[in-house]
């Protein structure tokens, strides 16, 4: 713990979204997230997005993300185990593709 908060190496909630919003908005957008990890960032913007497809090759991270999603009752996120190689080449287009600490 640091100052009563859990120790984290990642930016405080909101910082990354403020940076993103300088260039584009994710509100009501279809978002593809590559390398979502445990959904730390996904679950910050998902409540405003129209739909999110987020994947990560690490099953344990996706399990954690799905558990957090269920707790928050977010029905517009599809967390999947996998990599971008497994993304079908066709399908409804996305408005944004996000590589959050994963490129």
């Amino acid at each position, binding site marked *: 713990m*640091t*100052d009563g908060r859990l*120790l*984290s*190496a990642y*930016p*405080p909630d909101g*910082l*990354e979204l403020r*940076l*993103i919003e*300088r*260039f*584009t908005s994710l509100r009501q957008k279809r978002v*593809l997230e*590559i390398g979502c990890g445990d959904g730390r*960032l996904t679950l910050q913007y998902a409540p405003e997005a129209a739909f999110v497809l987020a994947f990560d090759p690490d099953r344990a991270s996706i399990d954690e993300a799905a558990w957090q999603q269920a707790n928050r009752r977010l029905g517009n996120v599809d967390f999947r185990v996998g990599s*971008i*190689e497994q*993304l079908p*080449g066709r*399908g409804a*287009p*996305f*408005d*944004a*593709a*996000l*590589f*959050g*600490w994963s*490129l």
Partner: protein
Amino acid sequence: MVHALQRAGQRLRPGGALISLRPHRTWRPAIAITAPGSRLPVARLINPRFDRNLRAAESALERVVREGWFTLAGARSSRYRIYLQRPSQMRSYLELITPPRPRFPPGARASLYRLWSRAPAGARIEVTEYLVITVLRRRS
């Protein structure tokens, strides 16, 4: 990495945004000891393996723009700070980072402990991390 960007681009609508958030390549995490009215820089962490990954990411982003897949919408840097109560928390902090993890340059960890032993009551260890965002737009 270029392939991953191209693959993502295939699924973006024309004009859609490709967003990359990543650590800053040249502004390495900075460690300082802070107390009311004072700030004592100690070291910058190093991470040669990860630097190569970041260089490759930058290169891939530049290449997909150069090859006409995307246009550059913009890039911006930012920073954030994390405070630790004592030097022993540095180990926990570093273990939270996905490998390859940064480390102290030679002698810097010892310097942190030496300077901490002289720090005033109420001092904290400040870790400043830098990140960069690059946003590209898919060409029509």
